[in-house]
């Protein structure tokens, strides 16, 4: 054959090979984790049954809880997917999330008597801007002075955590609580719940139905998304086609900071109703794994976030019923990301077999 110009079969094959790669990674991670489950004296099949069937999707309550877990992960990893597409390695989502949460609580507590919708909007916007502002520093250092963002973002995570800790023990501390946490927000600033009795809050819908499509559109359909991919794939070619690399670096970092900050704001508004040191069990890092597992594609990231949400949520049932320590979720997360990276040659081979070689 040869000069064929197809209508998208190769595109399907390419996507399929990547999805297969991610599924293989999940499979291998669960298989490896089952060894540890076995070592802990439980039956892996039963343990996974508790995790995924009973714990994560068993009934509407647990399924909603899975989405509650998945939402901050989704927001963080959507942003990271944007940055990682341009090979901007933002490792600072955790700090950006905390700054978002801190500013959300601060703004929320200072807003008096605004109508709920306005107050919520202002609060969430400021949380997003806080995350973006925290990301702006490493972004500018990278774009202007070629200082590697990996190290600056890692360092800024710690600075953010100590800053939050300072505010929660000092200026923003709830005077009547024994814990370092802020006072509770007025109920008007609690994210509305859509169904009685479960924590299905508005933020979940916004993240899945509004922000995911927006990021998808941005990455796949706009000239900005095109430039993101170009800078990531070959900065030299990007320059040669007239792309200002510095501005792409800054913008992609800002978007990831924005979404991480928003995730923090939503957690404060919808789940905690206050700012706490335990706002995130490492969503900023889970987001790294999820962005890569989802192949940096918004749809893939959505599915991967739900998977990780299910693993984290289900790990509590697994703990209760099969006596596996709660940390199992993080073990699986760590294994998934290693296998996701290592599965690249596998999906490459599948694709090569399916498309490239069969074309000769």
């Amino acid at each position: 054959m040869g000069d064929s110009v197809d209508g998208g079969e190769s595109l399907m094959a390419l996507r399929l090979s990547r999805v297969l790669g991610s599924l293989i990674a999940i499979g291998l991670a669960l298989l490896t984790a089952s060894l540890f489950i076995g070592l802990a004296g439980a039956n892996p099949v039963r343990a996974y049954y508790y995790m995924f069937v009973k714990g994560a999707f068993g009934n509407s309550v647990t399924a909603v809880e899975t989405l509650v877990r998945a939402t901050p992960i989704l927001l963080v990893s959507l942003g990271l997917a944007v940055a990682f597409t341009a090979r901007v390695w933002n490792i600072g989502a955790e700090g950006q999330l905390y700054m978002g949460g801190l500013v959300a609580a601060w703004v929320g507590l200072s807003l008096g008597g605004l109508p709920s919708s306005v107050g919520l909007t202002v609060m969430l916007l400021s949380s997003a801007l806080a995350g973006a502002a925290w990301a702006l520093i490493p972004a500018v250092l990278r774009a202007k002075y070629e200082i590697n963002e990996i190290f600056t973002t890692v360092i800024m995570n710690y600075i953010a955590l100590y800053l939050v800790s300072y505010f929660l023990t000092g200026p923003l501390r709830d005077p009547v609580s024994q814990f370092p946490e802020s006072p509770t927000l007025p109920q008007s600033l609690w994210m509305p719940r859509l169904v009685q009795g479960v924590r299905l809050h508005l933020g979940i819908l916004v993240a899945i139905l509004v922000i995911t499509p927006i990021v998808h559109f941005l990455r796949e359909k706009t000239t900005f998304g095109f430039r993101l991919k170009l800078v990531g794939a070959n900065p030299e070619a990007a320059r040669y086609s007239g792309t200002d690399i510095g501005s792409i670096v800054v913008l992609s970092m800002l978007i990831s900071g924005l979404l991480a900050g928003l995730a923090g704001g939503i957690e404060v508004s919808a789940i905690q109703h206050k700012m706490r040191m335990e706002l995130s069990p490492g969503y900023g890092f889970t987001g790294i794994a999820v962005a890569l597992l989802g192949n940096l594609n918004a749809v893939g990231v959505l599915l991967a976030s739900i998977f990780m949400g299910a693993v984290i949520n289900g790990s509590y049932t697994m703990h209760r019923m099969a006596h596996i320590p709660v940390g199992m979720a993080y073990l699986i997360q760590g294994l998934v990301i290693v296998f996701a990276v290592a599965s690249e040659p596998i999906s490459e081979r599948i694709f090569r077999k399916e498309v490239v070689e069969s074309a000769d």
Partner: protein
Amino acid sequence: MPIEMAIDLMRAAVRVMTPLLLAGAGEILVERCGILNLGLEGIMLLGAFSGFIVTYYTGSPWIGVLAAILVGMAANAIFGFMTVSLALDQVVTGLALTLMASGATFYLYRAIFGWYTSPVPPHVTTVIRETPIPLLSSIPVIGPVLFNQTAFTYAALLSIPLLYFVLARTRVGLEITASGEDPQVADYLGVDVVRLRYLTLLAEGALGGVAGALLSISQYNMFLDNMTAGRGFIVIAMIILGRWDPLKMTLGTLLFAFADSLQLRIQASGLLTLAWFPYQFALMLPYLLTLIALVIVGRGVKGPASLGKPYKRLR
């Protein structure tokens, strides 16, 4: 009194610097060979965990350190397989390995010790003692600071000139540098780039493992989740600041170690009872200083020409 405080501070700084120096020596070795290993943080964490567990159960910190060495080497062998043999992206692989180490130690700690079983976390009692060097340790100021430390501190301090010597004066050092600059040319001239990359990675795994173990069994006497607290990344930042020169990297790690020791002392001193100095700012100090150092001296630094680029053999 102030003099004694200063000596105590410097002595602590050298002790805190020890693991950073060992990890840094290992990372310089692999980076000079063309590999950027962001898994160092994970290696250290695995070393801290395995060193602690084995010491806890055997009662011997030496066996603990040995375990940390083996675990570090094993982890870096995996990194090597992915980045050298499979030629996968080094940044992504390194980050993945670090996340894996974080998740694995988090889980295993709970699997072994249970979930908050006791209010006092498990800790090791047999610590690694200082071995003062006769004569030298009695020199005023320098003696207690440099010559009344553990064997690991001496090893770490010696590793820097040794590394310097290996890189500048030996055949393997020349071949490592060449592999980091241009692996194609090095390979063409008969250098076994793949073997060297594995070798340096194994060396780094051992050094990083020891570095982590020192954190858990020598500095804290216990294991804490993510207790490396970014030190693996900070070491790499210090290597960048030091332009891949072992001696300059030492200065960078000393800066961090000094700030870290200082903040502990600030916290312990009465300073914090004054309302104007929150302890969080003390904790922040080492990170803040590293960030400032990066901004001032870390601009547009260029490393070994092939650093971070996968090398695929053509023949």
